[in-house]
Each structure stands twice: as structure tokens, then as C-alpha cells.
């Protein structure tokens, strides 16, 4: 659905697999990398990758966050046994990185690269083209030294071979310019044709014939999977650090992948007392905003949206998942469930509400027992029928429910609902 980060391990595997092709045979990168996880130990890896036991190694956490040196999550130039010991200490430990706290589960082990130069190279996209950023002073302080970075724009329709790289090559005055030019050209082609959204080497070095990326950060445009699945191999899109997907979120994700419609669920605070099920990518953001604006941000249990005319069955599964999470624990101060949405273009309100009603039937007893109040606002095709049906279901099931149509301002239902919730954040 968008640009998503991949592991350094996967990025380097993709590089190793394709750099020869994109450089017309000029460069190789052997890709001596291994990924150690709770399920695959370094011993197990060393069966297939005997260099792990013979080479000097570098090991670092590989979970989509940077500044690993500052967090002591990198060990350079170590032996197999040193790395093994280090991994035993770090694996499954919990660390705090920026605002996120999470468990360390993935580590990249690579053959240690001795480099005498620390260059910086990154490719980023913008609307009309792509930028090449280069600096001869790469390394951890690149942000502080950003004024030394040379940037060249490559228009979207231009061939990289036709772009003048002279400013970059001049900046790397002591390097073999021709080789550097060929390397940047090859890497840019790889970035472009393999549908990267972002690709950074910091630092890297090279020889005539070999590319030496010490550190790599990459994002792929996952919507291009249908074009590049073979080239990407089994590259994963891990969730951001500290955001392990719950089983329920994973379930909705699978449902979403299989559906032509859109179904999204992110848990924010399972103990929260404000639960939402909102239709529409745009409207769902506005509902979340309104809950936060009204001072209940800390109580917001989930973010999510369903849209693109999902079937009754899909909507049922989606609603059931939310209701299940909502009713696991009773809150003494009460909970509210907002079933919201704008005026749909083509999502059939009656059909989707049938699914919601089925789920409400399943959870009616729990909802009543826990005193959960339901607030509904929706418009769009067949909304009269949908609202009438859910109103009837509310009566039949004895639920505490309030139903509104498009005549009520879209987010007004949020303030009505929150008035009925004790306390606030």
C-alpha cells in the first residue's frame, strides 16, 4: 500500500543478486550476510554459510531503526565466538529506541568490511524525479555534515546515463571517478527498476570491480510487488520496531490482502474505552482526530477503516474482530463503540451493516453485560435500509444504541458519545 522499510539483510541480498546485471558485469557484491532470529541461530546459519566461522564479522540489530551504534547494538570486527556470545546477550532483550520500546529479535551478521573511505550515497524520490545525494564524508555524522552533501536531480523520464554526474565526481576528488560514476549509475538503475522508494549506503566504499556497502537502509514500494516479486525474492516488510502485530491485526491484514476492498486495523490501547469502526480512509482519520481533540486520545483503543464496498462476510469478520477485542475486559467506567463513517460513494450501507448486525448478534450478551454503548452515524447508498436494520437489531437484541444518518454532522456523533463516557484524559 506504500513505501515500506525492509531489513538491511534483505536489501543486501537484493543487491548481491542484481548488482552484476545492473552494472553490466562491472561490479560484484558477494552479499556475505546472515540473519539470526530466535528461530534460526548463528550455528544453524553457519551450516549453509561457513564463512561465518572463518571471517571477521560485524553484527547489528536489523529491525528498521537506525543509530544502532549509539544504542550499543552493533559489534564490529569480532570472531564467530564473540558474535555468538554477544547475540546470546542481546537476543530477546527489550530496549528503548526513541519513542519505541520493543524486543530485539533480528540481527544481521555480515562479513567484516575493511574500508579506507567512508562515502555516502542515497537515492530518494520526489514527484518529478529522483535525487542522488552523495558525500565523501559519510558515516554516523552525515546529518551534521549535510552541507557537504551534493544533490543531483534525475528527472523521472530521463535516463541515468544521460545525467551529468560531474558535481558528484568532482566532490570525490581522490577517488577513481570513472569507476564511481559507473557504480552510481548501476545502483541508481537498480533503485529505479526494482521499485525502491529509498535506498541509502552510509558508509560505503568500492574498488574497481567490487562494491562495499557497510551499512544499508532501504524502502520498497510494496504496491510494485506484482512487478518485482521475483527480483525481491522473499524480502519481508517488518512492522516498525516496538509495534509487534497482534494476532487480530494480523488476521485483518490477511483479510485485507485477500480482498478487493480495504480493511485496516491498528490497536492503540487495548485498555482504551473508546472503540471505533469507521468506514473510509479519510473519514477514519477525522474520527480519530476528533476523539483526540475532545481530550480522549489516551482512551482511543484502535484505529482502523473499512472501505471499497466490502462484502457482508468481510464486514462481519472485521466487526467481530473489533467486538472480540473490545469485550475481553470489562471496564467499570464503561466503554463506547462508535460505528462511524461519511456519506459513502459506492459502499452499500445496507450490505455492510448486515455484517455488523451479525457480529452484534454474536456479542450482544457481552455488550449488555459490560454496559457498552453504541453510537452510529452513516450515509451513502442504501443507508436508509441499513440504518433501519441496525436500529431494529439494537431493539431486538436489547443493546444500548443510538443511530444517526447523514443529517447529523459527521463527527458530532463523537462528542455525543464521549459525553456519555465518564472522565477523560
Amino acid at each position, binding site marked *: *500500500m*506504500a*513505501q515500506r522499510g525492509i531489513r538491511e539483510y534483505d536489501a543486501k541480498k537484493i543487491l548481491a543478486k542484481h548488482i552484476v546485471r545492473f552494472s553490466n558485469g562491472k561490479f560484484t557484491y558477494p552479499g556475505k550476510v546472515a540473519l539470526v532470529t530466535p528461530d534460526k541461530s548463528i550455528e544453524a546459519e553457519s551450516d549453509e554459510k561457513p564463512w561465518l566461522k572463518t571471517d571477521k564479522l560485524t553484527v547489528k540489530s536489523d529491525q528498521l531503526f537506525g543509530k544502532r551504534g549509539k544504542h550499543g547494538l552493533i559489534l564490529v570486527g569480532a570472531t564467530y565466538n564473540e558474535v555468538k556470545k554477544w547475540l546470546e546477550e542481546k537476543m530477546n532483550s527489550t530496549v528503548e529506541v526513541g*519513542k519505541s520500546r520493543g524486543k530485539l529479535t533480528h540481527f544481521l551478521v555480515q562479513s567484516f568490511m575493511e574500508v579506507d573511505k567512508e562515502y555516502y550515497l542515497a537515492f530518494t*524520490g520526489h514527484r*518529478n*524525479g529522483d535525487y542522488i545525494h552523495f558525500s565523501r564524508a559519510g558515516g554516523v555524522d552525515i546529518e551534521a555534515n549535510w552541507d557537504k552533501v551534493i544533490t543531483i536531480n534525475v*528527472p*523521472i*523520464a530521463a535516463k541515468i546515463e544521460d545525467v551529468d554526474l560531474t558535481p558528484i565526481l568532482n566532490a570525490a576528488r581522490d577517488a577513481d571517478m570513472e569507476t564511481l560514476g559507473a557504480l552510481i549509475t548501476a545502483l541508481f538503475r537498480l533503485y*529505479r527498476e526494482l*521499485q525502491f*522508494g529509498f535506498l541509502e549506503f552510509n558508509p560505503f566504499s568500492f574498488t574497481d570491480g567490487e562494491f562495499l556497502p557497510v551499512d544499508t537502509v532501504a524502502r520498497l*514500494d510494496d*504496491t*510494485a510487488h506484482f512487478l518485482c516479486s521475483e527480483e525481491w525474492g522473499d524480502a519481508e516488510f517488518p512492522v*516498525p520496531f*516496538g*509495534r509487534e502485530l497482534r494476532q487480530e491485526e494480523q488476521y485483518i491484514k490477511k483479510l485485507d490482502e485477500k480482498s478487493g476492498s*480495504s480493511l*485496516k486495523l*491498528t490497536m*492503540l*490501547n487495548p485498555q482504551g474505552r473508546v472503540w471505533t469502526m469507521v468506514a*473510509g*480512509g*479519510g*473519514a*477514519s*482519520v*477525522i474520527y*480519530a*482526530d*476528533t476523539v*483526540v*481533540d475532545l481530550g480522549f*486520545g*489516551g482512551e*482511543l483503543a484502535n*484505529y482502523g*477503516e473499512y*472501505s*471499497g464496498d466490502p462484502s*457482508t462476510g468481510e464486514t462481519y469478520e472485521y466487526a467481530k474482530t473489533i467486538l472480540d477485542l473490545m469485550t475481553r475486559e470489562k471496564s467499570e467506567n464503561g466503554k463506547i463503540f462508535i460505528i462511524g463513517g*461519511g*456519506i*459513502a*460513494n*459506492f459502499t452499500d450501507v445496507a450490505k455492510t451493516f448486515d455484517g455488523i448486525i451479525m457480529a452484534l448478534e454474536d456479542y450482544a450478551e457481552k455488550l449488555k453485560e459490560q454496559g457498552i454503548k453504541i453510537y452510529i452515524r452513516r*450515509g*451513502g*447508498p*442504501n*443507508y436508509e*435500509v441499513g440504518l433501519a436494520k441496525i436500529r431494529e437489531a439494537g431493539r431486538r437484541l436489547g443493546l444500548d444504541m443510538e443511530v444517526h444518518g*447523514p443529517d447529523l*454532522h*459527521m*463527527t*458530532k456523533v463523537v462528542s455525543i458519545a464521549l459525553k456519555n463516557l465518564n472522565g477523560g484524559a
Partner: protein
Amino acid sequence: MTKPDYVLFDKDTTAIIFGNQPAAVQRMLDFDYLSGRVQPSVAAVINPSGGSKGLMKVFFGGREMVIPVYNNLGSAVEQHPEADVVINFASFRSAYNVSIEALEYPGIKTLVIIAEGLPERQTRELVALSKKLGKWIIGPATVGGFVPGAFKIGNAGGALSNLSMSKLYRSGSAGFVSKSGGMLNEMANMIALNSDGVYEGVAIGGDKYPGSTLVEHLLRYEANPNIKMMVVLGEVGGKDEYDIADALKDGKIKKPVIAWVTGTSAKVFPSEVQFGHAGAMARGEAETADAKNAALKEAGAIVPNSYDDFGDRIRDVYEDLKTKGVIEEKGEVTPQEIPVDYKPETMRRPTNIMSTISDDRGEELLYAGVPISKVIQEGYGVGDVVSLLWFKKRLPKYVTDFLELGLMLTADHGPCVSGAHNAIVTAMAGKDLTATVASGVLTIGPRFGGAIDGAAKNFKAALERGLTPRQFVDEMKDKNINIPGIGHRVKSVQNPDMRVKLIEDWAFANLPKHELLDYALEVEKITTAKRNNLILNVDGCVGIVFVDILRSTGIYTEDEIDEIINIGTLNGIFVLGRTIGMIGHYLDQNRLHSGLYRHPWDDVLYMLPDEEEVLKHRETK
């Protein structure tokens, strides 16, 4: 008839729809009619997987009409040179190629891409191409937009009820642009409630790189003298809103802009949240909703405190413009009435068809109320399935066992019986499976295989009327009717039919009472005394035993059992069972590559009348 550059759609605009989207087309035509357009806005439809050409039936108001359907864009563009819009409903896999093609036709000025999930690089290439050719792209990942009273893209604007509610059949004074397509209606409604309504509304789509940006549409609105005020709904992620701020500061936009950027809640979330749209994630402080709202405010846009008072700010601006005389009060327009579609949910109307045995509408297929998953997971047999669909009950195991026994015993009876013979001849004539089975099944009737019902009916009636076996036989003889279920062409007392024996044994072993079978065997004693091939045959035996079974279950009254027989249930066993054999014969003949069958002359006795005899009656008066 050249339009100014700032006009993408007016009441003469016609579009080519790529994709088989009858619902979207109908919604466009409903809008057209409501708006009082003379010509429908859809010139042609492309159904790439369809045949060569065709027609799509649609309503224009109450009148039914057709729209030409092509299987490629080129033919449609050639046949409809006046159409300058392509609405591309192709999936994310093929949207790129279709879009390239559409942009390259000189006559196409505006391209709308509906699909969500286009690779960003593909979109950027399309943007570059459209700029080079001086064309507009709306989308991807959008429903499109509308110019009330003039033109509407696909599904934008929603159902008929909303078109009326948001007054999309007539022009207002506000130009509206949003990222979200889903919010298009909601905002049109909000604008209609707080001003004289929308002049034009466009949703650019939620992708990171939309084909046209918020500010590009605002600059168009700025140039359009009919638009007096502008409303923007932005979103967290990306920096497009800063272009609006810059345009305001540079004086490129002078009309009042009321803007709100959604996603202010992102800051309180525990970690990065990717909202519903691909572009909706802030990378860095500048892309947050708060930063963008602040920048817009600073540049002179009217920014509400939250979405809640967005409508109030729109009203303020509208009232202000009215006071200043910039906006003049327009008279309301009455839209043309559209006959309401027939809707089962909202109208009382007796249904034409009733089904009580199966239901495919829900989550799962139901056989007489039993979900198919249960049928499979709980190990139902073929007999159980027959039991559900024929009897609407899961009958006891011995009954379903008997059904299966019946199917197995009747599955085939060699190539020479009528059914198999017909099937074989048909297969040899080169006909397909369905024709072969049908020609075989059609022979089943009173003389061949159809005696199950008849036997059950006649024997049961005789027993109930208290006739002795002898009286029954005599009565049938008096009426000159062969007793159904008695007699076989080949089998006899000396050469018994093993199948009959098997059924009888089954009945003796499994049924506590088998009154009708006992009676039938008494009848058989009498008939075989006359001729040794007048035995109880397999049809008769199945029918008679089945009556004993139905009685033994205690589920049915005698009347109900009569109904089961009268509606042909028992013959169903033979038809179903024998179909297995006929399919077998079809497959057999095909494997053998048999040629056309021709009956040999010497097997036919030719006995034609004399020609003179035949013709002589013509002359007689």
C-alpha cells in the same frame, strides 16, 4: 467549442469508461438526467475482456437506451472523437498501460485513474507524460469528482438520494478539493448545508504522488470566474499543502480558502501509524497535520480549530461574500425526477420463486439449513445429502444407507437397456456429455426404470384397501394393466435378479416391519405361478421397500408418504443412480473413439404399404 483551460468538465463533456462498470455508468446517467443534461455523459464503454463489440443497456431517466461497448480503447476514441475524458477503472496491474494509451490519444484531455495500489514510479511516469502533453490526471486511488449540474465521474457523489441531498444537480459557488475520495460526498453535503453548494469538487486520491495536486486544482478554481470560494481537505503526510500556502503568499490565489488538514491525532499515537491512505503517514515534523494547518493559517487560509467547526467557517466565508455582493443569491433549481429503481428492500412485492431446500446468499451454502462446512466436516455421505435436499431432513442412518444402496444398485444395467443404448448412440454421434446423458435420461418412464413410483403407489393402495394379493392381481388383470414393479424381460424365478435379492435381504435385516414387501412377495407368488418371469423387479422392490422404510421411521403420516410418492421422489433414485452409468457410457465411447452408429438394415423388418394403395385415396371424393 473550445473550453477555457480551467474547465475540465462541463455539461457537454462526454467520457469513455474503461472497464465493465454498469453501476458506475448508470450513476453517471442518473446524475446527467437529474442535472437536465441533454446528452448522457458516457460516450462509450470499453470491456477489454468482452467480445468484439456490444451494447450496454442503461436508463436515461425513465427511458431505456444503449451505450456502445468496445473491446479496445482505440476503437472507442476513433468512433467518439468528441469524448475528451477517459475514466480508467482498470485494476492496479493494468492501469498504467491503459493510462499511457489514453494519454497518447490527442483528443483525450483528462484522465481519471480509479485503481488503488499503482506503483509510485508508474504514477510518477504518468505525471511526467501528462505534463509533457499538457493533460490532466485525477487519481489514482480516487472516486473522481463532479461539477454539479454538468458532469460527474463514475461513482463519485454516491447514490441518487445523496445527489439530491447535496444538491449536486445544480451549481454552487465553492470549489472543493480533497485527497480523500470517501470524504467527497461528506464535504459536498457540508458545503451544501453551509453555503449555496459546490461548483466543482475533486478528490485527488490518497496516494503519495497524486496525478494532480491540491494546489493545481485550486489554481484552476482561482481562474474560474464562477468559483467564488475554495474549500480544501488535506491530510497528514506529504508536503503538498505547503504549495497552497506558497500560492496564497505569492498572490497566485486570491479567493478565500477554507482549509483543514486531517490527521492531527497522529501525534498522540504510541508509534507511527499508517492511516488508511498510502500517502497518509508523516515522515518528519513538516508533514504532520499540525505543521501544515499552521502553515496554511499563516499564509492566510481560513483554518478551523477542528473538523467539527469546518462547516461554520465555510458559512462565515459564504455569508461574508454574500454581504459583499461577490456571491449573488441564486434561485433554486428543481431537478428532473427520476423514476425510482425497483428495490426489494423498500417495496412490498410478492416474490415469484420460493426455495426451501438450499440458500446460497449467506456466508456459506446451506443444504436445508445445514451449512456445507458441517456437511463435509461431520462426514455426511451422499445419502445424507440426498436426504437433506429431497426430504429436508437428515433421515436416520439406515434410511440414508438404503438411499445409497438404491443409487449403487441402479447405477447401470449394461449397454443394451434403453437408457444406456440411447446414451451410447448419442455419444457415438459426437454429441457432448450433457446431450448424451439427457438423451439417455429421457427414456426413463413408465416402461423403463420409472416403475418405482408406480409400484409403491399401486401396492400401497391395494394393501390399504384391504385387497388380498389374489384380489389385487385379478383387479389389475380386469383393468388390463400390467402391475408396475412386476416382470422382467430376462430374469425369472429360475434366473433371479441378484439386485432384488440384495434389497430384500437388506429389508429383512434392517427393518423391524416390512409389511408391504411381504405383501408384494405374496403377489409375486401368484404372478410367477402364471409366468416365471413375472417376478418382483428391481424398480418394484426399491419402491416397495422404501414405503416400508418411510413407515418405519415414524416421521411421516400415510398422507405424507403418499405425497412423497406422488411427486416422483422415488423415481428420483433411479434417475440419479442411472445418470452415473450414462456418464460412464459417454466416457467409455469417447475413450474408444467410436464413430457414428448406424443401425444395420438386416436388423430392421421393412414392411411398406403398396404405393397404389397409398395414393388411391387422393382421387376418391
